[in-house]
C-alpha cells in the first residue's frame, strides 16, 4: 500500500524523469563514446577510456575540410536567411500588399515538402540553369538559405504578431524618428525571436543531409562525410565534434538564461 501511495504522489516526477532520460540519453552516449579507444575502425562498442580523440579532434586533418565547409555554409546561410526572413516577416505582418496570402503559403512549402523532393528538384534546377560545374559550395548555400528562410519567417512573424503595435506609436509620440523607433523599441522586442530563428537556421543547415547530398556535387559536408565514413568505419573524433557542438549549445543557453535566473532568484 505504501508503495502505491508513494507512486501516486510521485507519478508526474517519474514520468517527467523518463521523458528527459529518453530525450537526453543519446546526448550522453555521444559524449561517453568520445572517450573510447576503439580497437577497430568502428567506434560503436565501449572498450577503453582514453583522451586520444579529444587530443586529436580532427583525426589528423581528415575531418578539417568537411567540418569547415559545413560551418562556413551554416554561418553564411544563417546570416542571409535571418536578414532576409526577418525582412519578409516585417513585410507580411506590417504591410498589406497584393499577394500577401500567396507569399505566406509559398513560405510554408519548403517546410511541408519532403526533403528528398526538394533535393531532387533543386538538383534538376541547378543542372538545367547553371550546369554541373555550379554544384558545390554555391548550390548548397542557396539550397540551405531557401529552407532556412521559411523557418526564420515563421519564428519572427509570431514574435512580431505578439508585439503591441501601440508601442511603436508611443515611441513616435515620444519624439523617436522611424529609425530610432526601430532600433530602440521594435528591434529589442523582436530580437529574441530573431535570435531563436538564427539558432534554428544554423542547426538546420549544419546537419542537413538529404538536400545537401543532392546539391553538393563533389563537395563533402560534415554530415555527408559521416554518412560516407559509416561504410569504412567511424572514428571517435566524430563524437568529439558532436560533444563540442553540445557544449557550445549549452554554453549559449547558459549565457542567455543564467543572468535572468539569478535576477529572479534574487528578487524573491
Amino acid at each position, binding site marked *: 500500500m505504501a508503495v502505491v501511495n508513494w507512486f501516486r504522489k510521485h507519478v508526474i516526477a517519474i514520468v517527467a524523469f523518463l521523458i528527459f532520460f529518453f530525450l537526453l540519453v543519446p546526448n550522453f552516449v555521444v559524449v561517453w563514446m568520445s572517450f573510447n579507444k576503439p580497437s577497430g575502425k568502428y567506434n560503436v562498442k565501449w572498450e577503453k577510456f582514453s583522451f586520444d580523440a579529444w587530443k586529436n579532434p580532427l583525426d589528423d586533418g581528415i575531418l578539417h575540410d568537411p567540418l569547415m565547409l559545413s560551418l562556413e555554409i551554416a554561418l553564411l546561410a544563417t546570416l542571409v536567411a535571418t536578414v532576409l526572413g526577418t525582412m519578409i516577416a516585417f513585410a507580411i505582418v506590417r504591410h498589406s500588399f497584393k499577394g500577401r496570402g500567396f507569399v505566406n503559403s509559398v513560405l510554408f512549402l519548403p517546410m511541408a515538402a519532403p526533403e528528398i523532393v526538394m533535393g531532387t528538384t533543386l538538383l534538376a534546377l541547378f543542372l538545367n540553369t547553371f550546369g554541373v560545374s555550379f554544384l558545390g559550395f554555391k548550390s548548397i548555400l542557396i539550397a540551405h538559405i531557401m529552407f532556412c528562410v521559411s523557418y526564420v519567417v515563421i519564428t519572427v512573424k509570431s514574435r512580431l504578431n505578439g508585439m503591441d503595435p*501601440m508601442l511603436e506609436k*508611443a515611441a*513616435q*509620440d515620444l519624439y523617436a524618428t522611424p529609425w530610432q*523607433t526601430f532600433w530602440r523599441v521594435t528591434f529589442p522586442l523582436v530580437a529574441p525571436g530573431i535570435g531563436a530563428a538564427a539558432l534554428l537556421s544554423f542547426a538546420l543547415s549544419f546537419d542537413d543531409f538529404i538536400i545537401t547530398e543532392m546539391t553538393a556535387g563533389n563537395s563533402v559536408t560534415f554530415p555527408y562525410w559521416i554518412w560516407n565514413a559509416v561504410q569504412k568505419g567511424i572514428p571517435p573524433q566524430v563524437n568529439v565534434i558532436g560533444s563540442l557542438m553540445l557544449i557550445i549549445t549549452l554554453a549559449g543557453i547558459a549565457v542567455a538564461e543564467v543572468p535572468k535566473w539569478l535576477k529572479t532568484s534574487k528578487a524573491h
Partner: protein
Amino acid sequence: MSKDTDTRPRAVSERGRARVDTEAGDLKLVNVTKRFGDFAAVKDLTLTIPQGSFFALLGASGCGKTTTLRMVSGLEEPTAGRVLLGDHDVTRLRPYKRPVNTVFQNYALFPHLTIAENIAFGLKRRGVKDIKKPVQDMLDLIELSHIGARKPNQLSGGQQQRVALGRALINRPQVLLLDEPLGALDLKLRRQMQIELKRIQTEVGLTFVHVTHDQEEAMTMADTIAVMNMGRIEQLGSPTDLYENPKTTFVANFLGQSNLLPGKVAGPVGEHLQVVLEDGTRVLIPAARNRAGGEEVIVGVRPEKVSIHSSAEDVPDGHNVLAGGVVTDTSFVGVSTQYVVKGPYCDEFGVFVQNDGALIHRPGSEVVVSWDPSQGFGLDGKQDIDAGAEADLEAGS
C-alpha cells in the same frame, strides 16, 4: 481663414505681441474631416481649446473622439482641414516633431525598459542632457521613486497608469492627450486617479485633452466638455452648462438621465413658455432654456429635480404637476430612492428622491410627480427622443 491662422510674419506692437503670446498655445482644429474609405469618422470639426484648460471629448465608442485625438498627436492625418498649435500649422507634421504627448489607453509602456528608462525616453530622443534630475523629479511626482528600476510588467495597473502619465508629462508638451487613461482601472482607483490627474493638471498648467466615454469622469475633471456623436460635436460647454441646459436629446440622454416629454408650445407666460403635453397636461418651461425654434417641443427634466407625492394636495405652489401615475419600480440605493413611474404622460418617468426619511412609495402606489418649472428645459421636437440613450448604455455608465 481668420487672421489668427495667418502664418505671414507681421509687425506687432507691444500690446499686440502680448496678445499673440497668450494665444500661442491654443489648440485649434479648423474644418477637420477624417475619412476611412467611405466612412467619415470626423466630419468638418472646428474647435478651439484654450491653453491651460482641461478639455474633455466625451462620446460613445465610434463617435470619432479617438480619431480626433490622433489627428492632434499626428498618428492620423486629416483628410481635410487644419490642426494648429497657436499660430503653428502642424497638420502635416510627423508625430515625433510635435510638442504633443499622449497617455495611451493601455499605457503602451516599453516592456524591455525600466520605469526610469520609460520616463527618460522622450528626453533622450530629443537629445536633452542631464536627464537624471528631471527623471528623479518625475518619479517623485508620480510617487514611484522606490521602483524606478523595475520593469513595467512588475507593476500594478494604477502604477503603470502613473508611469504612462509621467513618461508624457516629463516632456512638458504644449498639449497632453489622454486616451481613456483610466479605462483599465477599477472604480476605486479610477476615482483616486481622477482627483490626482486634476491636481497634476492644475499644478503643471498644461493643456490636457481627455478622451473618454465615461460622462462622470469627464464631468469630474474637465473645465470644458465637448460631447461628440457620429463625428460631430453635439454640444460644447462647462459640465454644469451641459447638464442643466442640454442642447439636444442626445446630450440630455447621454449625460446623466432625462425625462423627455413631447408637446406643443401654447404661448408665453411671463418668463416661461406654456407647453401642452400629448396627454393634454399643461406645463411651463423657462423661455431662456428652450432650444426649440418651432411649435413642436420636447420638455425635459432631470429625475433628481422631480418630487413625488401621494396626492396632488402635497404639491408645492407653482410646480408643474403630472398626475395619474403609478409606481412600477422602486429601488432603494441608500442615499436615494429611484422610482420608475408609469403615467398617461410617459411610460417610464424616472424620479430620484434623496433619502430624507420620507415615505417610500412601493410599486403599485398611485403618485403625483412635480417639479419647479425653472428646472426644466425645452428641446427641438423634431429630433429622435431616444438619441443617446443607447449610446449611454453601451458606454456602461
